[in-house]
């Protein structure tokens, strides 16, 4: 070969070397997915619930945030997260299998529930919500209280709170605007919804709660409210509320789509589900590439809450895809993603047998864990468990 031809071949080889190496440590880093069994997933959920229960105060409040390096606990608290964590405890009891048979979970869940029930406020005719005295009432807190009560009702058949459940539904419906959006707060001073505040979380939480309420109380008209809000989420929420990325990866919307899956979803709802699936899928793929040098090129390390919500959302959409023919092509890819993501999440859980009680079962990032890290991760593990591999 002439010198020119040799240079050309050399240049091609160098180009390939840089392209291949550059891609391999960035976009094409290997996706590492450890194995996960059903027992391991349920064990992870039970351990997380154990952290929640073991660190609960006698007043029913959970340990909100812990810095294990300093051993200090935060004084902060969040009522929506309290309701959500209570809900997760009931979910672990209901779906957690034999490992969740311990009495400490029902005791902890009921204690947390009693705290909420003691703070229920009537907001109008046949409407109620809950919140600490002197604070505005939050839509999300009412929604997750309702889901907690529904889970508890499904576990023990207790219908004592059915009237309250309908009142919570009526409260949520009262927060809805004509375009299907939801207002986040109910102002105690004015006795009316605060028109200025919306929440990227609460709208989906309320939608899911309303969908579940309709399943239990089909004559109350909650389905109409739910349809309007689902349309809003699927078509205009991101633009109206300035959310990004679009669609905003809302796991509560995914829960809602799954709950409403047999109501006759329209094509634009399924298009929304498909887009959400993509958002969750790429988040899991990105995380699965965080190994070796990928830990440098694939930041940041997600916290248990954040990655838990991704797995919750993708699990719910996988369930939807499993019975909705128009999404059938997503069922297996979503199952692959949630198995991979849950396996990685499980390996990140602190499972120090005999270690400090305040650490076992928790997910720490930078030495800090918050109760919703355990809440979302535990719920996710429950939903992934049926998709995980056999123990043998």
């Amino acid at each position: 070969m002439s010198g020119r031809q040799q240079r050309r071949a050399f240049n091609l080889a160098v180009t390939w070397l840089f392209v291949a190496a550059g891609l391999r440590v960035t976009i094409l880093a290997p996706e590492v997915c450890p194995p996960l069994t059903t027992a391991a997933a349920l064990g992870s959920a039970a351990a997380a619930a154990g952290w929640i229960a073991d660190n609960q105060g006698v007043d029913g409040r959970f340990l909100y945030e812990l810095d294990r390096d300093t051993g200090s606990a935060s004084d902060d608290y969040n009522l929506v997260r309290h309701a959500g964590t209570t809900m997760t405890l009931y979910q672990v009891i209901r779906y957690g299998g034999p490992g969740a048979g311990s009495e400490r979970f029902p005791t902890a869940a009921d204690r947390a529930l009693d705290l909420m029930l003691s703070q229920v406020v009537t907001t109008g005719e046949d409407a109620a919500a809950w919140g600490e005295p002197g604070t505005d009432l939050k839509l999300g807190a009412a929604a997750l209280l309702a889901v907690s009560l529904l889970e508890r009702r499904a576990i023990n058949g207790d219908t004592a709170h059915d009237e309250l459940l309908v009142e919570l539904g009526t409260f949520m419906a009262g927060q809805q605007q004509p375009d299907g959006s939801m207002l986040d707060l109910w102002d105690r001073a004015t006795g009316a919804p605060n028109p200025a505040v919306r929440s990227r979380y609460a709208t989906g939480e309320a939608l899911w709660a309303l969908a579940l309420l309709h399943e239990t109380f089909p004559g109350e008209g909650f389905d109409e409210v739910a349809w309007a809000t689902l349309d809003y989420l699927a078509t205009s929420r991101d633009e109206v509320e300035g959310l990004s990325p679009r669609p905003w990866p809302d796991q509560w919307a995914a829960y809602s789509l799954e709950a409403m899956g047999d109501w006759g979803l329209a094509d634009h709802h399924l298009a929304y589900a498909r887009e959400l699936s993509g958002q969750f899928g790429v988040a899991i793929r990105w995380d699965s590439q965080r190994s070796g040098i990928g830990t440098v090129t694939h930041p940041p390390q997600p916290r248990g809450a954040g990655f838990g919500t991704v797995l919750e959302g993708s699990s719910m959409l996988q369930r939807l895809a499993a019975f909705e023919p128009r999404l059938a092509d997503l069922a297996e890819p979503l199952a692959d993603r949630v198995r991979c993501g849950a396996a990685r999440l499980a390996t990140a859980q602190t499972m120090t047998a005999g270690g400090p009680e305040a650490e076992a079962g928790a997910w720490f990032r930078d030495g800090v864990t918050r109760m919703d890290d355990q809440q979302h991760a535990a719920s996710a593990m429950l939903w992934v468990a049926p998709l995980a591999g056999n123990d043998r």
Partner: protein
Amino acid sequence: MNPTLAALLAVFSTWNPPATAHRVGQPGRRRVIGLAVAAAIGVVLALGGDRLVDLLGVSAPTFRTAAGVVVAATGVVDLVRRPGSPADDGQGQDIGRLADGVVAGLGPGPVFAATAAGIDVGWLIAGLGVLGAAAVTAWWLTRRRAAGTVTGWLIRSIGGVAVLAGVVMIIDGVSTV
């Protein structure tokens, strides 16, 4: 954009026949054979794309995203690079002339585009796309034209198509489960 169309556009535009023909240099049987060898490698990669992805330990959407980056980058290079004149006297050994064709058709762009197309739309369509692009390149090579203004704009236009196809592949890769 239709996935099949995007895949075929990516294959064709990364080959960028006038640009590749210009890089090959003077026409000749050995150089055309070299192009055919490059095309055959592309077809093989389209055929074995799924296995390659497994070997790399990545999912198809992740590979598509990476391929989209390479395709778009290839397009950018064709958009901004001046074709220049082929520093080729038409002489040299047979093996060198063969290498001219192979090297011109085996850049990262065509290779990634063929592999991704094979995964996304099947090896047959992808392979036909590669063979078609190589055939157009060979035809262009036989025209023996120097890189004039029209050719330059044509190369840039096809480079623009590669950028578009690459961006479509990136978006599709990122938004797929």
